[in-house]
């Protein structure tokens, strides 16, 4: 028995260390953003600054135009992309799920094949930039790669097949309801669980995406928050310019070391704040996705 308790404590210590290993970088980021410029220069980013200092945040607050704009773009792209993506995905998945639909097998293969093989970055980039001229448009942040994923189509198809009774659709059809009406008024309301799961993953995908912005956007007015953070990370001069909207402030005063951490905190805060609310669905989605498409 004593041996058992010993092992249990050892296990909890190991788990606590693992959890700390995952959490500590975030704490360092937050602590770094709250440390004064002088202290960072002297003793670097630390977990326990001697005194809490809000200069970096005050500075960001006073020069928040660019950041707010980037947030606006991220929110717009996430909302529009997720709504459109969910609708298109469901509209493709539903007919494939119908056992009587004539070309369901061919369509299922058409969707599935996109998961096995892809043309890669070069043809995709050239197609979108030369044929569709998508560079420096909001569409570039919404359409390429992220809008519809074959994997989610298959996931929804499986849900429709297993969870929507054929008799319900049949009887609505007998009552004279059209296919669109059945889809919208019967299938969609019955599919809230799968719509929520897919919607969560699609929206996290949009919120966190920086790749489309990296290859398609050069105009900093169209930067999403991730692209703005990306530029600031790789190019400290850009950060100084972007946070220098009122010309009266002197660039030498810029709390650039603390600010680098503060912008990252501002960028990551919303998703961490929302995490407790969607954690359950997130875990469920991860396991559903792994088991079977």
């Amino acid at each position, binding site marked *: 028995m004593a041996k058992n308790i010993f092992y249990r404590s050892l296990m909890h210590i190991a788990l606590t260390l693992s959890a700390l290993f995952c959490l500590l970088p975030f704490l*360092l980021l937050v602590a770094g953003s709250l440390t004064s410029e002088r202290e960072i*220069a002297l003793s670097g980013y630390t977990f326990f600054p001697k005194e809490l200092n809000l200069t970096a945040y005050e500075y960001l607050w006073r020069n928040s135009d660019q950041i707010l704009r980037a947030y606006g773009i991220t929110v717009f792209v996430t909302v529009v992309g997720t709504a459109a993506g969910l609708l298109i995905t469901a509209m493709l998945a539903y007919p494939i799920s119908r056992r009587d639909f004539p070309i369901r097998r061919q369509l299922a293969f*058409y969707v599935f094949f996109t998961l*096995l093989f892809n043309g890669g970055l070069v043809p995709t980039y*050239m197609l979108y930039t030369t044929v569709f001229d998508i560079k420096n448009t909001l569409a570039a942040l919404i359409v390429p790669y992220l809008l519809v994923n074959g994997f989610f189509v298959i996931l929804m198809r499986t849900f429709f097949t297993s969870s929507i009774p054929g008799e319900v659709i049949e009887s609505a059809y007998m009552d004279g309801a059209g296919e*669109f009406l059945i*889809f919208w008024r019967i299938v969609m309301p019955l599919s809230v669980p799968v719509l929520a799961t897919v919607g969560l993953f699609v929206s996290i995908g949009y919120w966190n995406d920086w790749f489309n912005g990296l290859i398609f956007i050069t105009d900093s007015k169209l930067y999403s928050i991730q692209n703005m*953070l990306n530029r600031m*990370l790789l190019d400290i001069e850009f950060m100084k310019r972007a946070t220098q909207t009122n010309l009266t402030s002197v660039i030498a005063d810029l709390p650039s070391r603390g600010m680098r951490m503060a912008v990252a905190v501002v*960028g990551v805060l919303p998703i961490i704040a929302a995490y407790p609310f969607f954690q359950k669905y997130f875990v469920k989605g991860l396991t559903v996705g792994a088991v079977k498409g």
Partner: protein
Amino acid sequence: MTVRAERTARILKKYGALFIMTIPGVLYLFINNYLPMFGIVIAFKDYNFAKGILGSDWSGLKNFEYLFKTNDAYVILRNTILYNAVFIVFNTAAAVGLALMLYEVKNKILARTYQSLVLLPYLISMVIVGYLVLAFLNVENGFVNKSILPLLGMEPISWYNEPKYWPFILVIVKLWNSVGSLCVIYLAAMLGIDREYYEAATLDGANKGQQIFHITLPLITPVIIIMTLLAIGKILYADFGLFYQVPLDSGILQPTTNVIDTYVYRALIRLGDIGMSSAAGVFQSIVGFALVIVSNYIVRRIDPDKALF
């Protein structure tokens, strides 16, 4: 009207609405996925902006010859495969270990807290990860150089200028980033094991260690094998964000941080070298496709339910 045409008309009348419903999705996948597949021909052409993709002259395998003559080809292939192989080993071992421990935590709230925390790094973008790593490794103000190395009596290290440290850094960052998601999958597999096995084992006097090695691990081995095979199928695809954002796109670090995906990106966007970038990309697509097919074939032999097709 012939019988055949009549039948087609009847089907169209009955299923017309369903056909229309599929149009946006079918069109999107055609543009976003199928057209680029045909775009693979670019790799076999001497691309000329004025002539366009279809008008450019064929060049056979010249682009591939040039690519494989460079030292870059060796470096990116080696890095991509080695890193992914090491990631598979470390992440699987850590995730299974973590899942075994989480499985034993009976307190629901505590179990959920542990799980949420290890999943947290998976939720954020690689850009943020770049910032987090910078807070540790910054040459002048980083936590490692300012707080840890002085404790050990060591001189500061210029992390972002020394390629030799990056294999270790990237393996740790990848582990940190993705162990949670893998752990959730293995934990789900463990929770699916029938409790009766354990009850019977306890009656027979088996201790915890014996139960782990003779019940839990053997029963989740198929899942481990399948996850590993699927990962091997994707071994030519690197995590672009990890290799681009975390080393801060540093040129000096490229000997140990350049992978196929970063090479294609830089050749295309920075240098505008369509020939080299498309050759590397097409190599990745075609060999990657073959690997997916082979690994899926093996998965199907083990457990048809877990196979992709």
